[in-house]
Each structure stands twice: as C-alpha cells, then as structure tokens.
C-alpha cells in the first residue's frame, strides 16, 4: 500500500514524541487501543489555568498511519482550549493525511485518545467527563 506524503512525513519525523508527568493534575492522559489489535496510542496534554493546552505528547504502537494520526493530533492540540480540542473529528485527520478506508480506524483511535486525555484531565480537576456522542466500536 502506498502512503501519502503527509503520513510518511509524520512517520519519519514524528512531532512531540514523549512523556508528560501523568501524576500531575495539569496533565491528562489517554491510553486507547489494545496490543492484540495492533494499535495502542498514548496521548497526553498539559493544560494551563485557562483550560488551554500548552503541550501535547504521544507514543504509539502501530502502523505508519496510526503513528502519523497521533503525531498530527498533538500538533493540532497545542494552543487549543480543551473545549475546542473536544471538537476534533476523526474525519479531519483522515482528510489531512489522505488515509485510505482501511486506515480510518487509526484516525478513530486518535480521536478517542484526544477525548480520553481531555476527560482524564477533567476528572482530575473535578469536572464531569464528557460522554462521546459517537459510538465507534
């Protein structure tokens, strides 16, 4: 299968690889996927007092499209408020990376990771988790 140039770029030079202190109450962590399925994404956000994401990091076990989807997600998250971040849709990722139909699940996983990270942050800071209106599985 041929990958798009953008997938190859993110895969070869992944942005924001790393780990934030998951014990900090300013950090939200989302860990989604399963090793048996061949994809695990961990996405972390650092949020300031105005609920704006100041930093984002990821680590992903998966194919090139999964790595690219999470790398792109971290780029998009930085500077967004957590409310705006919640609106990131997997189809935006599909479009940006030109993912083929067989790789759409990678973008779904990235969206799930974003929402999981935000909810982790919200719960840590005494807010209600936001239920996802989409059912993916």
């Amino acid at each position, binding site marked *: 299968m041929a990958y798009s140039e953008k997938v190859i770029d993110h895969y070869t030079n992944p942005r924001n690889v790393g780990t934030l202190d998951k014990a900090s109450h300013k950090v939200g962590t989302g*860990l989604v996927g*399963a*090793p*048996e*399925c061949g*994809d*695990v994404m961990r996405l972390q956000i650092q949020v300031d007092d105005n609920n704006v994401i100041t930093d984002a990091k990821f680590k*992903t076990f998966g194919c090139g499209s*999964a790595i690219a989807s999470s790398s792109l997600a971290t780029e998009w998250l930085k500077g967004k408020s957590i409310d705006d971040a919640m609106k990131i849709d997997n189809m935006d990722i599909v479009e940006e990376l030109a993912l083929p139909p067989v790789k759409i699940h990678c973008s779904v996983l990235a969206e799930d990771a974003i929402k999981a990270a935000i909810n982790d942050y919200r719960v840590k800071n005494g807010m209600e988790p936001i239920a996802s209106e989409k059912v993916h599985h």
Partner: protein
Amino acid sequence: MNIPVYLDNNATTPMDPRVLEAMLPYFVEKFGNAASRNHPFGWVAEEAVDYAREQVAKLIGASEKEIIFTSGATESDNLAIKGVFEMYKEKGNHIITTVTEHKAVLDACKHVEKMGGRVTYLPVKEDGLVDLDLLESSMTPETILVSIMYGNNEIGVIQPIRAIADIAHKHGALMMTDAVQAVGKIPVDVNRDGIDLLALSAHKFYGPKGVGALYVRRKGPRVKVTAQMDGGGHERGMRSGTLNVPGIVGLGKACELCIAEMESEAKRLSGLRDKLQSGLTVLEESYVNGNQEHRLPHVANISFKYVEGEGLMMAMKDLAVSSGSACTSASLEPSYVLKSLGLSDDLAHSSIRFGLGRFTTEEEVDYAIEVTKKSVTHLRELSPLWEMFKEGIDLDSIEWAEH
C-alpha cells in the same frame, strides 16, 4: 547493492537468467503445440516438454510419467485434494490436514466439506510441527487422504514427512504434500519420503510464474485423481489445456539448476540466515518463531516485541520483507500460522519474515541487520508498550479497550 534489498523469497523468487535463456526460443521460434502430433512444430514442442518432465521428475526422485503440469501450486493443490476426494469417494470421505497449511490447501478442503466430505484440521505444536500421536489417533477407516505441507511458508518449519506418510499408509490413506517451499531448497524424494501426491511451483525456485506441477504416484499404489477441468484430455487425462511450453521449459531448467546447486546453496543460505538471526536476536525481547532445528535453510521469522509489524516494515522500507501483522491484510487478523503456534496476538503483530534466496549477498544481509536494528530501536522509542515494559508494568494487568 540494489535498494530495496529483496528478502521476500518465500513469496516469489526472481527468475534465474539461465532459466529465461532456456525459455526464449519457445515463444516465437519454437511456438508449436505439444499436442500437435502430425508435424515438426508439434514434435519440437513435445520434445521440450518431455525433457522438462524428466528434469522435474529427477529433482524429486520421481519417474517422468508421474509429472502432471499445471498452472502452479494452487491448481496442483486443488487438483490433488478435490481430485482424490472425487476419485476415492467409494472408499471414504475423510481428509486430514493441518491448520498451518497454505490457503490453497485449506480452501480446497473447505470445498470438499461443502461436497459432503469431512476434514480434520490438526493443530500444530508450539514449534509448528505436527503431533504424530494426534495424527495417528485422528485416522479413521474413512480417511482417504492426509495432506500436510513439507515446509511452511511463514516460519519455514519442515514436517516429518516420512513419519506422516507411514501413518497415512498404515491406515490405507494416501499421502499428499504441498512442497512449494521445500522443492529445490532441500532434498525432496517422493520414494524416500513416501509421498503419493506432491505440489510444486516454478516461481518459488527461480523459475517463471504461472507454471507448476503435481506429482501423482503411478506404482505402489497407482494413484488417480479426477480431472477438475474438462477438455482435450492432456496430461494423462488429469489436466486438460494446451501446455504452457515456454513455462514448462523454464520449470524444467529451474529444476536442473537446483539439482546442481542445491547442496552448496543450502549451506550458503543457512550460513547467511544464521548470521541474520544472531545479528537480530541480540535485540532485547526478540523471538524466533517455529522449530529451528527442522527448518528450511533460507527462512527466519522473528518477532520484535512492543513494535508493530507494519509500522516496522515502513521503517524498513529499504528492505522488502513480509509481516504477520494484521495491518498487512485487510482482515485485521494477524497471521493464522503464527497464532496456531500459540503466539499471542501482539507477538504475531510484531513478526517479520526474512526470506533469503539465490541472489542474496552477505553485504545485503549485513545491511538488513543494520536497518532492522535501527528501525526496531526507533519504533520502540515511539512505543508506549516499550516504555511500560521498561518501567516494569505488566501489560496483561492493563484493561485494554478492544476495538
């Protein structure tokens, strides 16, 4: 050295230029139909086919009258399994095979089930070998055929064919083997091994694509298969269709080259394979899949834990290899062969098959080691699972969200 380096010789092999040279006259100049009995054009073609038949027979210790030319191993497997089922249905309707067979065998068996046959799919042991006691206890008076592959295409494991054949024969069944990966790579002898039917394919041993053969034993016992295609009754009535003369000439030449070079080549390739394997298993958490003692000389299947196979192949884009990862197929299921060894899904996802061949050089193997090590290390730096492993977190203790 050409980049990318081709290390997928179990999928197909490049054709040997000597094979091409042998084939060339049979396209334009010597174009006759081997079945044309009444003029020289036909005689020339027939002579070439007869010679190729001898070359093929010689490679597997058979007689030339026992070779049926086909379009490849998929057709040979289908003809053997469906043909035996139809021919021997008075005697019984039970076939035994294994879960690690090639799809051509498994799907032909599924077809037989639809036709009213009964098929036992034997599991294999952790090292990929058939459990002979289990085979013996699965035999019934209704069993007409045991179909077990010679060497496995994914992990290279070589089955104890003689012992399997003895069990089949003791219970009055025929022994069939898909020997696609073994023929031309290791000595295969239908008499020494007790084989009644054998499928082979030219493109797996430096011959052309689209041509193969089925060996059908003629003596002790005389085996017959019901033709699966109707037509002019070529190939002793077992396989109709005008013979692919250039392809058959190429198959014959490929066999001749293997007879001459197999022994030294097997030694060279197992040396290179062992170098590759020891160069890669220095990486932490890397595992060789399948039995290593009974294995084809040119294959190594290695899992690199905490790294996903397709992602790894993308990093190793300068190597042409194959992965057991789900992502390489649209099915999202990892390799059924690796899973049948009892490998967990994540290890099956993390596997890479390296298949060396006649044109693989030591320089290429050194390069493959370097690229693979670099890629595994890079992807582990990206892998949350690797980080957890390094922190001593038991991954089985985590409740993963299946998706």
